[in-house]
């Protein structure tokens, strides 16, 4: 971890970066913002940790908890809403046994995120599954994809 942090710090100095770009680098490297990382930077740069946390919680891009193995991002933009994304997300959460206030399943296999529009509105409703855009999503299509992921994660243990 330390090595990665050193590298991010170097980038920061080289690119006249700021708190947001540090956080973006941390998120990219770890998939979330570990508390230790923030404390480390806070000491190195003499910026209060609260400033990092304040910024991290302000922007939806940052996560303070690790995410699941598979990430399903449901678009909650207007076009997708009009085409029924609210029902989709409720049904997915049920299917994956994720309680309403949480976003990751207990076994850590699935995280369901919401995003406000990914700019593919003419293909609404849209769900992004591990980076791949699935367009004109129906429950049927979605169940098939989830089934595939469930099967796969059975073989890849962990």
């Amino acid at each position, binding site marked *: 971890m330390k090595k990665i942090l050193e590298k991010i710090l170097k980038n920061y100095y080289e690119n006249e970066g*700021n708190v*947001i*770009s540090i956080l973006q680098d941390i998120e990219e490297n770890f998939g979330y913002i570990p508390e230790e990382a923030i404390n480390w930077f806070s000491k190195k740069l003499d910026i209060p940790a609260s400033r990092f946390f304040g910024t991290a919680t302000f*922007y*939806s891009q940052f996560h303070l908890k690790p995410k699941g193995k598979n990430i399903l991002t449901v678009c909650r933009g*207007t076009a997708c809403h009009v085409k029924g994304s609210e029902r989709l997300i409720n*049904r997915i959460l049920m299917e994956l046994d994720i309680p309403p206030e949480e976003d990751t399943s207990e076994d850590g296999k699935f995280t369901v995120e919401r995003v*406000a529009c990914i700019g593919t509105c003419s293909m609404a409703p849209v769900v992004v599954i591990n980076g791949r855009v699935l367009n004109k999503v129906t429950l049927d299509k979605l169940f098939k994809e989830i089934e595939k992921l469930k099967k796969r994660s059975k073989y890849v243990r962990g």
Partner: protein
Amino acid sequence: MSGDNIKIKICMGPGGIAAGGNDVIEAFKGQLTNQRINASFGEQCSLHQVGCRGLCAKDVLVEIIIDGKETIYENINPEKVPRIVKEHILGDNPVKEWIAGEDYDNFKKKQIKVVLSHCGEIDPEDMNAYIEAGGYKAAHKALTSMSPSEIVETVKTSNLRGRGGAGFPTGLKWELGLRIKSDVKYVICNGDEGDPGAFMDRSVMEGDPHSVIEGMIICAKATESHKGYIYVRAEYPLAVKRLQQAIDQCLQKGYLGKNIFDTGFDFDIRIFQGAGAFVCGEATALMRSIEGKRGMPTPKLWRSAEKGLWEKPTVLNNVETFANIPKIILNGGDWFRNLGTERSGGTKVFSLTGNIKNSGLIEVPLGISLREIIYDIGGGIEGGRSLKAVQTGGPSGGCIPAALLDIEVDYESLAKVGSIMGSGGMVVLDETNCMVNTAKFFLEFTQAESCGKCTPCRIGTKRMLEILERITNGNGKEGDIELLEDLGSHIRATSLCGLGMTAPNPVLSTIRYFRDEYEAHIKDRKCPALVCRNLITYSIIEEECTGCGACKRACPVDSIRGVRKKPHKIDPELCVKCGTCFDVCKFKAILKA
């Protein structure tokens, strides 16, 4: 030269990519390098990825040009590629049944492409393609033969108004930017595209990145600035990549950096990636974000033109605003002005989405009627249902009811009916959409995105949302509508920034035109559009049910009982009204009421 005879252009705009454009490209590549095809023939063909062509509903769109003759195919997938190559490219006999038909022609008819003139025509990653299409001529002209005030005058003449939402005259903004003297000044391009449900700016940044950069260079010259930023939202990684590539190409060619076009003028652009916050689209919040802080708006004691980024004079414009600039410089202010209405010049890009047949990206002259957009270009409503309303301006805008379809689309007339032009999102709602639910949707969004700095917005929107929640849950009270109106008008009047000031708009405009729907929810405990979960029930129509068991298997809470081949039943006590059974039943045997 190789690749001159046969051009294959594949739409790789947001829609094209989502529809599998990459696979189509690979399929063409595979076919063209196929051993059975003569090697020299393969060399005559060139493959181009192009930006959004607009009609995303029919993606992937593929254009084949043989000796200047253009043919457009719609709904292309990799399986269709071998036949196109064999019959059309090798056999000179186009595959008639896949050629884009009437919809595509109608879709194009009333559009005028200024901002989007390159989108769908040129390869956005190829700088030479942009230059061949006339690119950087305007920047060259501005830098070599125009003075800053001449540029400002041309932009003023054009009547161009900011495309980011507020519609402030761009020429005036630049004039102020020029007048204020300072050693450091900034030019910022706002590519945050916060309206959830719109993709105009994404399409421009990805489909024609050089036009944005060229517009910024001209602005820099006009306002005597030497440093620019492009703020791109986090959800648009491809836009970031394409813009960065374009910037690097410009640096290499000497179109950015020191001594541009040997005129002694310096200008640099950096990209800044947003981190996901709607309020950062607001100009002052955006600048705080670039400074690395929480993106909170600041009261406008000074105009940004005087004290903006790092307290230095800053001119900030929207992506589409900048993309218009090169065309204005080349064709003159009068030309642009005459395209639009008396009060706003030019064209406007809209993303036409929701329950409409030809959803996609369109560009129309300002002053066109909403009816022409929905019916002539958009092809009307999907599935023969009837139009209820058109939502414009996103979370800051309002809903225009079907009865007002003949209004002209421009800043003033949309404001008059209680909506706004906004940045160009246009979402079509039909009879299956509940207006109260729609209002709640927008308020949920603005409430969550409120930065929390001022009280009316932080707490007021929360209270409004609670009322909407109880109405849609069937617990609405007498007087709730009036309470919403009252709260809304106060939030509008007292919030700090545009987010709060406009947040009540979706609620107020739906109350104005669809009060009866609110009343049905409150008084009759009914959702006329059958959307609000607590106000509907699902049951099985015995006569229609074949007992196939599809619904039983799909039900997440085991609320459906029955034996095979006999009509099933839903237990209303257990049913959570997720609607899955309704979706999976092939016999229309589920009744939603």
